Structures are given as structure tokens and as C-alpha cells.
């Protein structure tokens, strides 16, 4: 199976994502991890729209879309059905951050409580991209979006911190929760493999920068996702049975290096630099580093 997985392109070309789309890459990697024996459940959003205008589907595995907010519940039903039929397909939801952090919370909470054997993957591009870059619960503090724009009465953009979905789902008792990033494709693939092979409801949140929505050149998608990790604004970790494990260590760089490359943070630098706001974002990165212990401490030169 491993070999087969590597060769076949189960997420086919011809889809309509923007060039350099992080979520499109995540879709490809996902199917590399699952292979063919999977049923994919999608929510309304960029990925669904760019991959399935009738009759041109890019999915070469069974795929279903019902609504924006009910993928976890649809997956619950599929799981129950397969169980009754004695079938072996793995069930994977792939949903945007809006679908996951916001409107889908009800169905997700229910599915996780019930303990269905499904893997729920959130491809996190940190806003509602399909509808034109509106704020979601995953939008980071300080990012400007079309519904958290900047202006005299709101110089800082989005005033709310990113919702901690991994912690929320870990609190639901999920056996396996992980964060990943397209910056590290193989790590993401491995985590998907682990999740689909862990009984019970598992959650993976994969960071998938969106050049269009964040405002950077399409070629920089991987570079930006790496910077998110190197600044500590995104941490790759696993939570196994409630315990945080294996947070990826980095030699951190200042958050500005990440922020200044993206239009959504431009207001922090222009017309005037907002030091206080940048410091707040740095503090978020510092808190992450502290919480997850990701800082690589320089070794003292041996005596």
C-alpha cells in the first residue's frame, strides 16, 4: 500500500485553486497519507469550491459534501453505516477553519463526544477565504480581514486571539490531536496516518497559508508557513490522550519577519509602525514558546 500511495495522484490536477494555494497542497498530501481506502467528507469552502464544480471533481476517492457546518455529523453517519456494513474505509473530514472553529462547532462537539472513529482535519488558512477573506475564530490577533478591517476606531485589525481548537477538542477527550503545517509535508502525512489508525475521533489542524487572503506572492506559500513556525506563532505538536507531546523545537526569529511579509499585517508597519501591537503579537509567540517549550537553547560551549 505504501508504494501505491506514493505514486498515484488521488487529488487530480485541473482544480481551480489559486496558484500556490496552501490548502490545495494539503489536499494532495492528505490523500497521499490516506491512500484509496478512505471516504472524504468536505465542508463548503475554498477547497470544496476549487475542487468540485459539477461535473469536474478533482477527488479520485469517494468524497461527499453536504453543508458548510455539518461535516462531522455527516461523517458520524457514514461511520455508523460502515460499522453496520462491516466496511473498512477510513473516514476523514477535511474542512476549513471557518467550518471548524466557528459554524461547525456544534456538529464537531457532538461527534467528538460520541467518540466516532473519524479523523477530522482542519486546513487552517485563518479566515473565510471562499467568501472573500472574512475573519474566523482562527484568524490571528492583529490580522486585518474584510470583517476585521483597520480604521481609526480599530487600528489593530482583529482584536481577538486565535481560538484554541486543539485544546477544546482535547478537552472533549479526543485520543489524538495534532497540529501540522504544509511547511513539513512529511510530518503532516505521518500525523494523518497516525490519526486514521487511532480509534476514536482524532483532530489535526494543518497550517495552510493562502497567498490570496494573506497577501503574499504565490511562490512564498512554503516560506511563509515555515516562518510561522520559526517565529513561534504556529507550533507543531501532538496531544495524545490529553498530554502535549513532541512540540517541534525551533530557533525563533522575531515575529516581524513573518508579519511584514503579509498584506494582512501591513497596518502594523504602515503608515506608521505600531510597536505596541507588534509587541503583543511577539508576546503571543513568546507565550507559545513557553507553553510548548519549543525554544532550542543554545548549548553552552563545553568548557
Amino acid at each position, binding site marked *: 500500500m505504501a508504494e501505491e500511495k506514493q505514486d498515484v*495522484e488521488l487529488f487530480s490536477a485541473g482544480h481551480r485553486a489559486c*496558484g*500556490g*494555494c496552501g490548502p490545495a497542497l494539503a489536499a494532495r498530501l492528505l490523500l497521499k497519507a490516506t491512500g484509496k481506502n478512505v471516504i472524504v467528507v468536505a465542508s463548503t469552502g475554498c477547497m470544496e469550491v476549487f475542487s468540485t464544480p459539477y461535473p*469536474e*471533481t478533482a477527488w479520485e476517492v469517494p468524497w461527499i459534501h453536504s453543508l458548510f457546518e455539518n461535516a462531522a455529523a455527516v461523517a458520524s453517519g457514514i461511520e455508523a453505516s460502515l460499522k453496520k456494513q462491516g466496511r473498512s474505509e477510513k473516514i476523514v473530514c477535511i474542512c476549513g477553519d471557518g467550518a471548524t472553529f466557528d459554524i461547525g462547532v456544534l456538529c464537531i462537539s457532538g461527534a467528538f463526544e460520541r467518540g466516532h472513529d473519524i479523523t477530522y482535519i482542519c486546513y487552517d488558512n485563518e479566515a473565510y477565504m471562499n467568501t472573500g477573506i472574512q475573519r474566523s475564530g482562527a484568524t490571528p490577533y492583529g490580522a486585518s480581514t474584510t470583517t476585521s478591517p483597520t480604521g481609526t476606531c480599530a487600528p489593530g485589525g482583529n482584536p481577538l486571539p486565535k481560538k484554541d481548537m486543539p485544546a477544546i477538542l482535547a478537552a472533549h477527550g479526543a485520543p489524538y490531536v495534532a497540529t501540522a503545517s504544509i511547511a513539513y509535508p512529511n510530518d503532516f502525512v505521518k500525523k494523518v496516518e497516525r490519526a486514521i489508525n487511532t480509534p476514536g475521533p482524532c483532530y489535526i489542524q494543518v497550517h495552510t497559508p493562502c497567498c490570496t487572503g494573506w497577501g503574499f506572492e*504565490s511562490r512564498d*506559500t*512554503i516560506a511563509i508557513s515555515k516562518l510561522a513556525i520559526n517565529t513561534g506563532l504556529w507550533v507543531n505538536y501532538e496531544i495524545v490522550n490529553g498530554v502535549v507531546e513532541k512540540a517541534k523545537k525551533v530557533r525563533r526569529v522575531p515575529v516581524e519577519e513573518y508579519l511584514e511579509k503579509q498584506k494582512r499585517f501591513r497596518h502594523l508597519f504602515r503608515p506608521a509602525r505600531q510597536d505596541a501591537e507588534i509587541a503583543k503579537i511577539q508576546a503571543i509567540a513568546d507565550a507559545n514558546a513557553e507553553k510548548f517549550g519549543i525554544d532550542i537553547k543554545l548549548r553552552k560551549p563545553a568548557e
Partner: protein
Amino acid sequence: MALGVGCAAPPGKARDNKTGSWRVFRPVFDPETCNRCGMCALVCPEGCVHENEEGMFEPDLDYCKGCGLCEEVCPKKSIRMEKEEK
């Protein structure tokens, strides 16, 4: 043609949509310097970089949108983006 009941369709049709027409820049691969690491194929969001019979990597220009991701990740700088001429 009959409609797929419930707006359902079998795989395959996406490939009718040749997204190569979107391209403004085209990746040009240099087989000389390439070390066959496969990063370009791994990260291409179109999944359109393939190893050819000679084991070299090349983009399928029917679909390549010219995003430049492959160029950026190539450790050997074997890929160059050139303005598309049609």
C-alpha cells in the same frame, strides 16, 4: 448527457480543465543541476510535477499555474520561472 443524480460525478473530469492557461510565468527545469530530491513534486499544489522515464522531474504544462512554489523549494536552484509567451 444525463445529469448525475444528486449532483454526483465520478472522478476524472477535473482534468478537462486545463489550468495551464492561467499561467503567467512558466517553470523551466534544469536537469543538469537537479539532484532528484523530489521536493518540487511534493509541494506542487497542482500535483503536476512528475518524474519522467529518465528519472528527471518536469512540470505538466497543461496544468501548471506557474505559482513558483517549486522554484522556491528547489534546493539546487534547478528551476527558473520565465515569463510565459503564448
